[in-house]
């Protein structure tokens, strides 16, 4: 188990898809609207070595109530500028596409967090700040301090992609299934 702390350095480059890790330190939430706003107006936090969490949390009275990951694939076409500016980790669920995999090569990783585990995540989080609050609770950029959030490397800096490997295998098994059942 590798324990990562933000800001992330070159240590993320040695990780391989499938490795279990924990992540501590500051991360920033961003969903579709925040990505669009950041492309237009710039990134409000220091992107160097940063981790961006695809998440629309429930926040109340300065506390994170629930903060599970959202589907990362929605941000496939909105991500490269973050990596260009120094972001080293994306956190979310479901994986991302080939363009992101290529963009990660040599500079960052995609970390998968278990979908729906909003209370577990919240139990490891402290709220540290917010930008773009006018976008609404789910779409704002929240600064969050993490304490050892358990994650798995979904895509590594060497082109490794666990989601894609599983998908390929599932397609092969589907063909077998159809043959066996006469579907």
């Amino acid at each position, binding site marked *: 188990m590798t324990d990562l702390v933000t800001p992330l350095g070159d240590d993320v480059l040695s990780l391989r898809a499938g490795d*279990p890790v924990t992540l501590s330190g500051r991360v920033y939430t961003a969903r579709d609207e925040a990505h669009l706003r950041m492309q237009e107006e710039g990134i409000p936090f220091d992107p160097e070595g940063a981790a961006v969490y695809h998440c629309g949390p429930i926040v109340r009275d300065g506390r994170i109530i629930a903060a599970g990951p959202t589907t990362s694939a929605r941000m496939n076409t909105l991500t490269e500028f973050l990596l260009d500016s120094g972001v080293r980790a994306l956190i979310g669920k*479901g994986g991302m596409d080939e363009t992101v995999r290529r963009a990660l090569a040599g500079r960052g990783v995609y970390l998968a967090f278990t*979908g729906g*585990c909003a209370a*577990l995540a919240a139990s490891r989080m402290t709220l540290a700040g917010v930008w773009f609050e006018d976008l609404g609770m789910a779409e704002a950029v929240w600064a969050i301090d993490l304490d050892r959030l358990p994650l798995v490397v979904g895509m590594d800096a060497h082109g490794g992609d666990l989601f894609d490997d*599983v998908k390929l295998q*599932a397609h092969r098994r589907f063909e077998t299934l159809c043959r066996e059942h006469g579907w």
Partner: protein
Amino acid sequence: MSHPEQTPLYSAIAEATQSALRKAEIELPRDIMRRLAHAARTETNPTARAELENILANISEAAARNVPICQDTGVPVIYLTLPEGMAYTSHMGDAVAEGVRAATAAIPLRPNVVDPLSRANTGNNCGRGMPAIHVRHGDACDVTVLPKGAGSENVSRIGMLLPSEKDAIGRFVAETMLRAGGKPCPPVVLGVGIGSTFDGAAALAKEALLQPVDEMTDYEQELCDAINSLGIGPMGLGGDTTALAVKVRRGDCHTASLPVAVNVQCWACRRATEKVIVP
């Protein structure tokens, strides 16, 4: 004459709706818990086992902190059961909506309901056609809630198959999961509606999700085994556990038709029922 909002029935329905939503959002039903615990015990893939352990830890945290299991608290789908002699009125619908508004503020729930085109958020999980209320006959007046998240709803599928394709329903169901991959937060429960009409099949698929998951017919088990053999695993990271259960509901249909709907449900198969007790 009192305002309709003040009738004992209105208050009782609103309270039952709010209470059922609180229960559903914070605590998973026992049958789902049993299936998840079983999966965590039997899973052979280490990554999948870690995912299932996260899920179980999350459920404990949600209970301990008295917060929703998932930040996507879904859109409210409501099944209102009325006994013989009790007629459905718009007043009851208003009461259900009142319960949803109250639950949204109190639990709190994420306000997820928006205008489909302007995407403007209504702020209270109510709106045109929301909450979706399905009225059914039953022995007593009760409210069942099924908060439905978008990740799994979005990969649900309906197909108008040919009657000659009845032996290939399994292909359609498995293909739905193949296309969905990790997106719907597996391990999933699949609600399958077979027959009825275009809209009826979808309603059957959703109602299938209300049935207990720790019992399956041979047909359901066969579909479940087929899904699990794909190896998609929890969150699409690989493993033995892709589906916790497949539940099927059938309706008769036109002789020229074979509608099949698959309503995909994430592992957080949230549902709860409260009796409506009018003092």
